[in-house]
């Protein structure tokens, strides 16, 4: 290709492919094709400045999202691993908050770490934390609305969970591992075999980020709510294993902690509303 006829599109293609060390037309990009030599820098060295900046920026973004993973494996290992991640997963968004979503999957398949299963869960937990941190602000749930529902319509209630809550099941003592590696807990050692459990990652009032342990019935309840099941369907599904007292207690906790953003009645979704009860949402004004 002649150097003088390169179009804007071709220059961008050669630049970005060269940056990520990808081929163009099955050939390694030769920076001399489109970059001028400088007194102190040849074209490849000039491109290397941008390569260092881009890869360094993406590794920094990963380090900010996954600080506990970084602390577990050490900085140099983290940087080397992240370097490989960047090569496999170039950024696909102009928003760096979106970068690193596949890091837990990458760790799962990263051969030097295959024996450290807890790291995969730790990475998943940190990604959930990151997404909860940036999740939509939603109004506080107002329990007064629940009191307006007729008792015979309770089974029809479908709760909507906040976008800023995520539940998580793990085989490892993940909360302790996370706390230890975020400097929130002092322990000489953690027994990885002491068992796992259920966690909720959520953003509480005043933007306080929290990770809390859940009872199994609370975890199952929140999972079923997330699927969009009605209260009647949830009771039916959970009753063989859990009693109604546990389910009601889980509901009470969810309301108290404002894990619920709003609710509606299933009958109002699929046809005429026989009861005349208006679909309720916390965005509605109480009159």
């Amino acid at each position: 290709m002649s150097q003088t006829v390169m179009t804007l599109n071709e220059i961008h293609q050669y630049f970005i492919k060269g940056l990520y060390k990808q081929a163009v037309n099955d050939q390694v990009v030769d920076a001399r094709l489109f970059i001028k030599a400088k007194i102190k820098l040849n074209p490849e060295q000039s491109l290397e400045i941008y390569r260092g900046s881009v890869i360094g920026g993406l590794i920094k973004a990963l380090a900010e999202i996954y600080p506990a993973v970084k602390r577990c494996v050490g900085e140099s290992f983290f940087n080397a691993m992240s370097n490989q991640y960047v090569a496999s997963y170039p950024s696909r968004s102009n928003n760096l908050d979106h970068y690193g979503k596949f890091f837990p999957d990458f760790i799962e398949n990263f051969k030097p770490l295959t024996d450290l299963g807890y790291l995969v869960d730790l990475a998943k937990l940190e990604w959930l934390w990151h997404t909860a941190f940036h999740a939509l602000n939603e109004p506080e749930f107002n329990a007064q609305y629940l009191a307006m529902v007729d008792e015979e319509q309770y089974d029809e209630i479908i709760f909507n969970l906040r976008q800023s809550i995520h539940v998580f099941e793990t085989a490892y003592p993940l909360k302790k591992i996370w706390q230890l590696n975020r400097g929130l807990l002092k322990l000489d050692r953690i027994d990885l075999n002491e068992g796992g459990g259920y966690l909720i990652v959520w953003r509480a009032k005043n933007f306080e980020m929290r990770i809390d342990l859940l009872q199994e019935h609370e975890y199952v309840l929140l999972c079923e709510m997330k699927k969009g099941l009605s209260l009647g369907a949830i009771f039916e599904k959970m009753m063989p294993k859990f009693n109604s007292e546990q389910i009601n207690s889980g509901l009470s906790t969810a309301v108290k902690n404002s894990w619920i953003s709003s609710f509606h009645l299933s009958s109002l979704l699929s046809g005429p509303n026989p009861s005349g009860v208006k679909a309720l949402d916390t965005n509605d004004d109480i009159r």
Partner: protein
Amino acid sequence: MPISSDDVCSEQISGVGIGLRSKHYEYILEHQPDIPWFEALTDNYMGEGGQPLDYLEKIRHLYPMTFHGVGLSLGSTDPLDKYYLKRLKDRISQFQPSLVSDHLCWTSFDGIHGNDLFPMPYTEEAIKHLVERIDQVQNFLGHKILIENVSSYLSFQVDAMSEGVFLSEVAMRADCDILCDVNNIYVSAINHDLDPIAYLGDLPAERIKEMHLAGFEDQGTHLLDTHGSSVHEPVWELYQQALTLFGGIPTLIEWDTNIPEFEVLKQEQRKASDLMNSYKREFKR
């Protein structure tokens, strides 16, 4: 379509502002330092919600604000990101910044992003491309934007004009304004063995609506625009030249890496204010 820069927000800024960084949120809210305005990095507030937006709202109640972005990718041959533009318009509507700026650069090709500011080739084709895209952005937002010159570490074989001429042509044909980053001019001038004062002379003074000051690092083979230190002496000198040419237009102290305590930024802000005030006394625009 002719667009008035006054349409962004009626609140005008003046003097020397400081780049708003998360490290200083609490300090600013608690101490309410005597700073005429802050500049928010728009891309830090593009999430659905969360605490950063809450802080921005609280600080906006106290101070005039400008928006500065890195995500428009005006020079890219990829389509403009409509989702980003829509979110930007929503944020502008919510926070009413006095100025909205992005860079004379590109950041992606074929959906692969560098999340960095890549220089444009300085060609007629690139001018036309940028003018068309800036026109689309300004029409969508309903007001003018400012485009900022980036630091660069390479130049292209196809370059047919200087960066200053290129930037001026784009601004004039697109009818947009210019954010003149004095540090970036110095960094690029040293890296490309050019005269930074001649660069300033190429720019249309009437379109310069904001200036930036920041620090760089000398890497031996080149200067690297790190925004991680105090403004260097040659950049202060160039800033004085810029004040002579453009007058005392709003200027920003930027510091993005190794961010120091707020007082350090305040010292830089005072120094820039003193220089601006001394030129304001002599300069009749």
